[in-house]
């Protein structure tokens, strides 16, 4: 079966690892009570990682528009294709929406993002307490939605690997056997 292009595979796994790490760090850092240097360090790392995901997602979208993914196996029912396409579309939307909601949440909190502590990114909005709490909730729930969709995505991949045995998951694995 035809595999994804190596660029698509590299971007998929790089973004996957970064999203899992950034998501986990987000949960850990918000669980630290009070104010500690570790907490502030984690917040900065979380933001740098989120900005990296956003940049890689932009690259990935450009690549996806240029290079068509390999076709699904012929036996796959139409409804499954529709579900798979919708799920992938939603994951693409969230790859942008999650970091952007976090970015604007930070700006609304009056904390600009300085990428790697070196490059100040644009302060597009003023600090705003009401907007801060709205964006905070939005960022949280978009993340919960992302976690749920990623779980479905992973389960579906394993269904193809273990139940259907149709090679769909292998199309995206970094090393083909």
């Amino acid at each position: 079966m035809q595999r994804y292009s190596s660029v698509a595979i590299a971007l998929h796994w790089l973004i996957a690892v970064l999203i899992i790490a950034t998501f986990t760090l987000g949960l850990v850092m918000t669980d630290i009570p009070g104010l500690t240097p570790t907490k502030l360090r984690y917040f900065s790392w979380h933001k740098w990682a989120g900005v990296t995901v956003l940049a890689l997602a932009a690259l990935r979208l450009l690549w996806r528009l240029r290079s068509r993914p390999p076709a699904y196996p012929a036996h796959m029912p139409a409804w499954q294709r529709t579900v798979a396409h919708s799920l992938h579309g939603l994951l693409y939307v969230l790859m942008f929406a999650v970091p952007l909601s976090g970015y604007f949440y930070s700006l609304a909190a009056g904390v600009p993002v300085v990428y790697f502590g070196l490059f100040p990114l644009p302060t597009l909005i003023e600090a705003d307490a009401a907007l801060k709490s709205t964006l905070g909730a939005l960022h949280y729930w978009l993340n919960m939605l992302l976690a749920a969709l990623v779980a479905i995505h992973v389960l579906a991949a394993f269904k193809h690997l273990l139940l259907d045995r149709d090679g769909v998951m292998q199309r995206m694995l970094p090393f083909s056997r």
Partner: protein
Amino acid sequence: MTPLRTLFAAALFTAAAAHAAPLKTDLAKSSVSATFKQMNVPVEAKFKTFSAQIDYDAAKPDASKAAVDINTASMDLGDPEYNREVAKKEWFNTAQFPKATFVSTSIRPAGADKLNVAGKLTIKGKTADVSFPLTVKTAGKQQVFEGQLPIKRLAFNIGEGEWKDTSMVADEVVIKFRVTAGQ
């Protein structure tokens, strides 16, 4: 009138003449904030409660006096949890040091609309001599005094223990203020 009384009255008169008129501070149009860098990210915190007394007469700038009292517990970082943290011992220790104060020792004219101010800044029980330029602008019947003063937070023990690490929170903090006052 005895000579002593005359002298006393004269001294009183001179003292009164040497004082410029105290102005009434318009707190709604005044602000005091501190800007610092946290892992290179500039963050501004506003002090919500403060008072300022300014004696200023444009005709006699040398006779001017300024005093500012800042309620350290009123620092707003934009998050109630963080505000509680900076009130603690390692930061402002607001229980023991509820106020930060500035009292001028000399105010000298320095060109059009500009004054050079020297004075004593006390934060967390530590007093330091500071000086900074100040601009004065007239807005209607009021005067707007504006300036900024860079300080080193560690000189005032702001951020003790693990917070002494200046790669986390930079040593330099810029205090920015605008005081609007009028007759």
